[in-house]
């Protein structure tokens, strides 16, 4: 119980600090390019946060880094393109359908490939997720081709003036969905029996299975949640950045860097890590030639692993034989 308290305190503290930084930055930069950067940084940061939460949920329950995480976002975006841009389905219905389809795929993949390997070494399972990742990517290339596709925004493209900055309306959809997803995940892990059981299993799998928590079910639920989060992230960001078969790798790498920055396995950490990485990246893109923007995530990954491997909000890993 003590750890939960501390974690919630950390969550409150983390978000409080972050909001202070944002508010101060808003007051200082109000209406300037700097504020513009922060707004677009927070938009992509929310996406990274959702993907990072996907990584964390699967890592907590199985200690596997899921290399297919980014591909769920890619699939979400591409399915949205087929449903809404090509098929004429209204955006919100398309969103729901696409998330459902990717979630079903994630759960199915877990049962078909990860579940049979539950007694194998972690490295075996990781190689399988790498296989899944490139298989999905190549399949998407086959189905949708290589050209990036444009997906219509949920509510128009004319920018809104917000505190002096021009913000595309889709950004607010991104914020809305990200906050909703974070609340849902938080409620699941803190208010439902299943979620609490999964947290127990993440803490000590053997003890949890002794008291009747099924590790096999937690793995299935973790993959379901992670694929759903990934798909939602991929769909809401698609109207801002183009969708294509190849976006999964980069989104996955950014999401993973965010998870490491915040602390792998910590949900609040994933949120903070994602937002910080998003802002840093946008600022870098503003200051340096944009070709180097993608290098930021990697530099942060290496620096965090060097200086503070447990991440901003994580706890040092226990060593068990």
């Amino acid at each position, binding site marked *: 119980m003590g750890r939960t308290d501390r974690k919630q305190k950390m969550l409150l503290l983390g978000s409080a600090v972050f909001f202070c930084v944002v508010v101060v930055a808003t007051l200082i930069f109000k209406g300037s390019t700097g504020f513009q950067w922060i707004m677009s940084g927070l938009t992509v940061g929310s996406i990274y946060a959702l993907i990072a939460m996907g990584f964390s949920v699967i890592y907590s329950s199985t200690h596997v880094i899921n290399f297919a995480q980014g591909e769920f976002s890619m699939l979400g975006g591409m399915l949205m393109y087929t449903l809404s841009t090509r098929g004429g389905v209204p955006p919100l219905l398309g969103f729901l359908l696409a998330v459902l389809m990717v979630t079903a795929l994630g759960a199915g993949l877990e049962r078909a*490939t990860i579940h049979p*390997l539950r007694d194998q070494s972690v490295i075996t399972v990781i190689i*399988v997720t*790498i296989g899944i990742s490139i298989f999905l990517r190549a399949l998407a290339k086959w189905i949708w081709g290589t050209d990036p596709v444009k997906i219509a925004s949920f509510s128009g493209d004319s920018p809104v003036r917000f505190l002096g900055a021009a913000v595309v309306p889709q950004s607010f959809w991104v914020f809305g969905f990200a906050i909703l997803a974070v609340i849902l995940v938080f409620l699941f892990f803190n208010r439902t029996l299943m979620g609490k059981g999964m947290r127990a299993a993440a803490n000590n799998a053997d003890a949890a299975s002794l008291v009747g928590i099924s590790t096999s079910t937690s793995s299935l639920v973790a993959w379901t949640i992670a694929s759903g989060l990934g798909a939602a992230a991929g769909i809401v960001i698609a109207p801002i950045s183009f969708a294509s078969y190849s976006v999964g*790798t980069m989104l996955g790498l950014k999401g993973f*860097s965010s998870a490491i920055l915040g602390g792998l396995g910590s949900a609040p950490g994933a949120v903070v890590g994602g937002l910080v990485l998003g802002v840093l990246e946008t600022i870098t893109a503003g200051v340096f030639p944009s*070709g*180097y923007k993608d290098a930021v995530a990697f530099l942060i990954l290496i620096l965090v*692993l060097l200086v503070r491997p447990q991440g901003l909000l994580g706890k040092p890993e226990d060593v*068990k034989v």
Partner: protein
Amino acid sequence: MDRKLEKGRSSGRGDYRTLLIVAAFIFLVPAWSRMIPGEVLHMDIVNVMVFAGIYACVVIGLNLLVGYGGQISLGHAAFFGIGAYTTAILCTRFAWFPTWLGALSGVLLAGLIGWLVGVPVLRLKGNYLAMATLGLGEIAFILFTQLKGLTGGTIGIPQGLNVSVSEIPPLSVFGFKFDSDIKFFFLAWAIVMLLMLLNINIIRSRVGRGLRALHSSEIAADAMGVNTSRYKTQVFVLSAMFAALGGALFAHFQRYINPESFVFSVSILFITMVVVGGMGNLWGGIVGVIVLTFLPSVIQAMPQWIPGIPASLTNFSNYSLVLYGLLLIVFMMFMPQGIAAGLSRASAFTGRRAKRLRDRIQARKYEGH
């Protein structure tokens, strides 16, 4: 105890014997492949084998890392590229620059970069290296395409650069130029055999024993005083240097390079070669390399062998990644020991079968009496 020692020694000698057999088999490839007429073969076996030898350098090191270090690298195409670009840049900028020194510089630079990435990442338990190297691979690719003044951008070396030479010079040692397929074939595979010899000795050394202990239980190995993170880092650096050596050979054989040869899917190809051949199997790397390097040529030659196969099927690059992904999943799920282990099991199986058959014939003979 004595017998165990004896057994260990004799199995080691077995590895050296297998190395001799494999070497003899491979170095005879040009001889027998010349005997088959080109109209039947539809591929240049020696040329494909040169590329297999080049990739084998990378995959032998990667297999050491995956199979013995228990770590995955998704960025070995970056080290392969660093080896290729370093020597290509040095040898085209400065016409006097000895090619072997260019290759050596590439190997050392890759080792240094591998060390810089490996030290912070491999200090930790867990599989962070896979993501870190994935990032490294992306960064290296960005640099290969963006640093136009140095690397010639997407056009590559030497066409994308403002240099006097029209191609990367062939590798030459003491004035002997490796400038034909057949010369390069012997060079590349001689290097592969040397790396295999080194590999066998590493596995049998203190480091190898430490790595094996680490593979079965890292924490137990730690507790027994094995410096696990140092061993992992050493193996990672070594595998980066092997990869760069392969890259340098690649640049001097192909005579031109561009970033296309060092994309993410090449890193995946290397991992697939390790998995298909057999992770942690001494011969797995070579088996995987030969199978997967010949695959595209075999598929391309298919319509000539069997009439009626649609031409669309022969465009291997269309579906290479789907295939690699499936191979990774299927092998890990159903054949985690790879083809090499399957081969040795099959030979043991047929050996047993043959013995049983002999016994039965023998028994029948007695019955007849």
